[in-house]
């Protein structure tokens, strides 16, 4: 079969099993769009801004585990995609981004809409390819998917010059079934000797804790993690990215750890004598001040990426491998050893943890006449029966979802953890809804974040992706305001926008349903009404207490044991800050 480069690209994606491609046309990809027009297997989702395309593909990838695919034009199309590429890179999300490029002979001449996409994206992709020969195109695409989805996943860019896709040049096409790259061989199973050592250490622990992260979600190892934790009976904490990989309503779960983690999780980390880190990377938002991090603990670390091991925290027993096979290996060795954890020590340890739990660090003022954002999230959890896909933007609302929406399944919690990209939530929710049209998909956002990609409301109408947007509207960039309150004597420098659109009208202008909620008693009925409208995107503009802060908190330069807890100040009165 002889095909043009454009046809090869489209057919390769079809042969790769790609269902959706998120994109925006432009000069350098016109041949490609013409090829897309002449087929109906690959569904193209036209976004309103290239950043939206990357986040939508990213949301799709996070929810399904399949790679997200993006198509953008050269120059500004490519640069607009960079934020989304970096977002995926920081959270190890498999994506393939196809960017148009000016024709080969004019590369380097500052041609119209030319940027060095390979150079620009080099630090924020797992790998990138510039296609210089149409006969290598199919193989390059296969390689890109292989690299993006294996080992530690990540985004891969394929930069395709316009002349490569020219309709008049046809070459034989065959999509390779397999590719191998001699310089790329990710490790899968763990080193047996290391695993034995780890099991010995784990079983000798008196104050053990399991600290698991996004790697368990990415590695589809939730089942193995649950079995592992239940076998040992040890307390388990999740990172922001790991939420849902272990059921939050399980009694061994002690909440998220880190900057806005629970008091009990952070105290348990601090006091522990053995930590097993599973698919987590000791991010600075997790560790707090490194010198104070887990002073009494021996650390075991399972990670598919050797460079994540001992990067910031020196570990005692490193195990390189995919979390799923490594956990299976561990369970087997635990079984073989016929040893049991020290029951007496474990009981004492759990007693200690229960004591920390009794601090009730997530309690908030439930009597307030103002809408407390935490209450909205709790109600969302109830109305959706704890089984919705929830995307978020970045800031206070993101932390409140992490704290007050207990996720029991992996891939339900979709947020930008590493890069912290405002504007992520709405397009990501569209990607999730396309993948799971029958599931409840909520985007929890804030009045600042939502404005960063609000144009995608239009995409949501075009493709009929009825999502529910819960806008916790406190008229501030809440997290910035909170830091300014704590660290800058309440000098609220530019964290307040004097003008905010009327979101209800805005939602209506985009063809959706808008609702404004101003009283606590309206929250529940509004959520119920919104989720009852199965075929409409609903924008709930919820006016929340402006002064509310995210507690508990580890402030900059502090350790896990130095959490700032909420000081009860009685019922808040009707306060407006500005």
């Amino acid at each position: 079969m002889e095909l043009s480069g454009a046809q090869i690209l489209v057919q390769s994606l079809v042969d790769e099993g790609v269902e959706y491609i998120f994109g925006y046309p432009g000069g350098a990809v016109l041949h490609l769009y013409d090829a897309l027009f002449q087929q109906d297997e690959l569904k193209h989702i036209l976004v309103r801004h290239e950043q939206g395309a990357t986040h939508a593909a990213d949301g799709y990838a996070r929810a399904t585990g399949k790679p997200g695919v993006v198509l953008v034009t050269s120059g500004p199309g490519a640069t607009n995609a960079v934020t989304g590429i970096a977002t995926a890179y920081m959270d190890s999300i498999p994506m393939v981004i196809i960017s148009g490029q000016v024709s080969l002979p004019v590369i380097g001449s500052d041609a119209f809409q030319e940027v060095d996409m390979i150079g620009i994206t080099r630090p924020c992709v797992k790998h990138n390819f510039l296609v210089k020969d149409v006969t290598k195109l199919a193989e390059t695409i296969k390689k890109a998917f292989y690299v993006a989805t294996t080992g530690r996943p990540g985004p891969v860019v394929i930069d395709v010059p316009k002349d490569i896709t020219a309709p008049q040049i046809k070459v034989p096409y065959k999509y390779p079934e397999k590719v191998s790259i001699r310089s790329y061989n990710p490790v899968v199973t763990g080193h047996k000797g290391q695993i034995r050592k780890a099991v010995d250490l784990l079983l000798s622990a008196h104050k053990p804790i399991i600290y698991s992260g996004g790697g368990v979600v990415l590695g589809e190892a939730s089942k193995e993690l649950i079995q592992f934790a239940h076998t040992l009976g040890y307390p388990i904490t999740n990172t922001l990215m790991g939420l849902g990989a272990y059921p939050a309503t399980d009694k061994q779960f002690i909440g998220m750890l880190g900057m806005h983690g629970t008091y009990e999780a952070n105290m348990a980390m601090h006091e522990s004598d053995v930590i097993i880190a599973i698919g987590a990377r000791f991010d600075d938002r997790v560790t707090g001040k490194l010198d104070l991090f887990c002073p009494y603990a021996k650390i075991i670390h399972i990670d598919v990426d050797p460079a994540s091991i001992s990067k910031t925290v020196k570990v005692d027993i490193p195990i390189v491998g995919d979390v799923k096979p490594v956990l299976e290996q561990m369970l087997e060795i635990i079984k073989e050893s016929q040893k049991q954890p020290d029951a007496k020590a474990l009981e004492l340890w759990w007693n200690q943890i229960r004591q920390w739990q009794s601090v009730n660090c997530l309690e908030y003022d439930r009597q307030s006449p103002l809408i407390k954002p935490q209450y909205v999230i709790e109600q969302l959890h109830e109305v959706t029966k704890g089984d919705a896909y929830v995307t978020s933007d970045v800031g206070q609302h993101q932390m409140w979802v992490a704290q007050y929406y207990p996720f029991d399944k992996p891939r339900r919690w979709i947020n930008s953890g590493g890069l912290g990209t405002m504007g992520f939530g709405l397009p990501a929710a569209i990607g999730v809804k396309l993948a799971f049209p029958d599931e409840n998909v909520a985007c929890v956002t804030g009045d600042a974040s939502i404005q960063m990609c609000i144009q995608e409301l239009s995409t949501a109408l075009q493709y009929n992706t009825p999502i529910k947007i819960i806008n916790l509207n406190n008229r501030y960039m809440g997290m910035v305001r909170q830091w300014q309150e704590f660290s800058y004597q309440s000098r609220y420098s530019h964290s307040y926008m004097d003008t905010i659109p009327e979101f209800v009208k805005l939602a209506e202008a985009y063809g959706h349903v808008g609702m404004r909620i101003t009283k606590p008693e309206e929250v529940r009925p509004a959520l119920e009404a919104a989720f009852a409208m199965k075929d409409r995107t609903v924008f709930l503009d919820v006016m929340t207490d402006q002064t509310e802060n995210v507690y508990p908190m580890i402030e900059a330069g502090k350790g896990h044991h130095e959490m700032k807890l909420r000081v009860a100040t009685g019922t808040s009165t009707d306060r407006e800050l500005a």
Partner: protein
Amino acid sequence: MRHIISVLMENESGALSRVAGLFSARGYNIESLTVAPTEDPTLSRMTVVTRGSEEIIEQITKQLNKLIDVVKLIDLAESFHIERELMMVKVKTTGEMRHEIRSLSDIFRGKIIDVTPTTYIIEMTGTSEKLDAFIAAINPDCIIEAVRSGPTGISRGEKGLHL
């Protein structure tokens, strides 16, 4: 501590910038860097001289290994190895100086590879310290220019860095 990392990588455009970009993005130090294709034209070999604590060097080698274009690497400082650097120095040579420079070059086992009535170009290989010593031994006013390749190295014995 000083380390010499020898990297075997795909001989593809952009591979060098991936390595250079990695060092600058992560704040690692590069003292010198040399690169050229190997006897197998699909591969090139790069020698990077860097400095850092054991933890940093470990991160550097892990991060380099993560690059898709990197096939293999070794830290030569970990075992017996030989390193050499090439230098060419152009010196002003008039009158008595011509003889003096020539004998100094002989002492350092340099070769005079270009002669004009007023200049010599001396070629010299050796460890970086030896080249430093030669530079220090000549009157700085005589040096018109000096060019150095940066060190490159190879491990001793039967082991080698290959596919």
